[in-house]
């Protein structure tokens, strides 16, 4: 029987989930990903105080996996995913929060990824993870490299058909692509006839250039990618018809980066809508705001 590795479907899973699953399979383990978020998951995560919705959802997925038959739990601690940058404090302290709230359960595989001073931190994390499953550092690294090479980033540079007005949907992937958390904003907007371009479809190089042009470097790695991509979209000609920023209440970095993007969008005459989500957000009110925004864009059209 191969070792079952429980992976919570939340937060960084939406960036690296494919790679993690492939990596564990290459090491002969069986990755078990918790099911899609539903209200029971949110409920289970609700006991953590004052954190943002995605962290609560993540904790809910952890509780779900604890109740299932997994042999290990995979909770990597990503301190920094790029030189000189940080993750948000809650991602860094996620493991400590989980440990403070659960006792017992299967052993946790918790490699620390700290790339502040280069790539060695990532390699060490890959080797540590493999070692926890009884593999040599070399075998672990080879498995990691192969898994990393096989990752499928979102189709970059996607642009909608010429002539149709399009809207950039900005936000972290763990919000945009979690259909419960985002209340399926992508599907709802599409159904309203809005051409939606998720922000992670921007050309990565253009996004990096746009982020580098900011007077102050954004030191949160994931927020920097997000802001760079959104700014890159604002810079194309003709600009998008609008921009919607989906964020979660109490997200620290978004509270400032959302403001930054709003000001950039408004300077370029692009209507901007910030929608903040938490576990009490009512779907009806959410839909009304999306509809009002879509109507406004339609009326604005020349």
């Amino acid at each position, binding site marked *: 029987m191969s070792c079952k590795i429980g992976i919570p479907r939340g937060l960084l899973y939406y960036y690296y989930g494919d790679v993690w699953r492939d990596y564990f399979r290459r090491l002969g383990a069986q990755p078990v990903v918790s099911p899609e978020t539903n209200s029971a998951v949110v409920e289970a995560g609700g006991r*953590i*105080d*004052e*954190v943002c919705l995605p962290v609560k959802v993540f904790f809910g997925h952890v509780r779900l996996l604890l109740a299932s038959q997994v042999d290990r739990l995979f909770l990597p*601690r990503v*301190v920094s995913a790029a030189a*000189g*940058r*940080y*993750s*948000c*404090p*809650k991602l*860094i*302290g996620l493991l*400590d*929060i989980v440990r*403070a*709230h659960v006792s017992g359960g299967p052993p946790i595989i918790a490699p*620390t990824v700290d790339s502040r001073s280069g790539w060695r931190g990532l390699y060490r994390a890959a080797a540590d993870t493999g070692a926890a499953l009884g593999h040599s550092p070399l075998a672990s690294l080879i498995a990691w490299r192969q898994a990393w090479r096989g990752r499928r980033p979102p189709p970059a540079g996607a642009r909608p058909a010429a002539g149709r007005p399009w809207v950039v949907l900005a936000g972290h992937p763990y919000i945009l692509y979690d259909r419960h958390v985002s209340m399926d904003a992508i599907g709802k907007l599409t159904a309203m006839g809005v051409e939606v371009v998720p922000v992670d479809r921007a050309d990565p190089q253009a996004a990096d250039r746009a982020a580098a042009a*900011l*007077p*102050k470097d*954004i*030191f*949160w790695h994931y927020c920097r990618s997000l802001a760079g991509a959104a700014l890159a979209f604002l810079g194309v000609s003709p600009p998008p018809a609008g921009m919607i920023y989906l964020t979660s*209440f*109490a*997200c*620290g*970095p*978004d*509270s*400032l*980066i*959302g*403001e*930054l993007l709003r*000001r950039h969008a408004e300077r370029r005459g692009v209507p901007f809508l910030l929608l*903040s989500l938490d576990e009490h957000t009512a779907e009806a009110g959410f839909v009304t705001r999306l509809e009002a925004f879509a109507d406004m864009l339609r009326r604005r059209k020349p």
Partner: protein
Amino acid sequence: MTVTFPNMGTLPIVLQALLKALGVRTLPPPPTGKATLELGARHSPETACLPFKTTLGNFIQALEAGADTILTCGGGGPCRLGYYAAVQQDILRDLGYRFDMLVVEPEVGSAWRVLRRLTSGGWRRTWSAFRLAAATMRALDAVERAACSVRPLVAVGAAGEVEAIRRQAAAAVAAATCSAEAAAAAAEFCRRLSSLPAGEQPPPLRVGLVGEIYVMLESYVNNDLVRRLGRMGVEVRPTMLLGDYFNAHILRNGAARHREEALVSLAAPYLDRYVGGHAVKSVGQTVALGQTGFDGIVHLFPFTCMPEIIAANILPGVRDSRGIPVLSLAVDEQTGAAGMVTRLEAFVDLLRHRRKNTAGM
């Protein structure tokens, strides 16, 4: 050039001492108050943390009063403070203000460039200005600590005296023209504080104050928590006054590093890594004060503060395993004095009962 800066406890007095000695014209913002908070909140993103809003309010008030240069800090993350200046600058420019913003990033080169922008004075003058500022900071911290220990002890009729002496001390220290004068003023006012008539109270409860530095030091935003606790008969131990922060993060001398390491290792069983801000220290100080017989801990932080929310989720575990009561309080612009006082009173009652029960055993 007329330079202003954010309010935070005794920081404006210290910065004024520094800048005046460097020959820079200063215009500190008016004391943080209701108008500051309203202005700041109106122009800030809704879920920005409280220090962002109040310091933005400070800047608006100072610019309106005629300042044309803002001196503030930057940072490298992961706490939001590091990105305040960039966004505040955008907001103020969109509001139509014209000003220079001097941002001191946490590296020597940046501090040096800012210093050169401010002054062209020689080495000797710069050195003595920094010495005066450091002495001012130490003197004000000493008075603050003395006031904290004296408050629960003085007779009811003399309660107002403590604050009067604190105000006089601040004025006297601010007027000092050299380090020796500042130190002498502190010694004199600490002596006056300790000679106030004592009341007939039992030995005061001892409570440690941990958390985020800005809301701990800026008494308007924390509803004067330290003084209120003092009047309830509690000796408050502030774990981070301006000088403590300066020693730990800027000076980083041997003793300060040693203290930091001790706190980090005390926190390690609960939180074994830096998560930004002061979260590790909040946990470490709670363990440390629990070991030295403190009756309780008040953990204070801005609503939505990322690092301290991690601490707030971890401190209940520390409370259970170390047996020291912890009250976590988040403050924002909606926090009313009445609600906070009720929670403090309930906490102090709990601590009193606890002490009585322990004594009876």
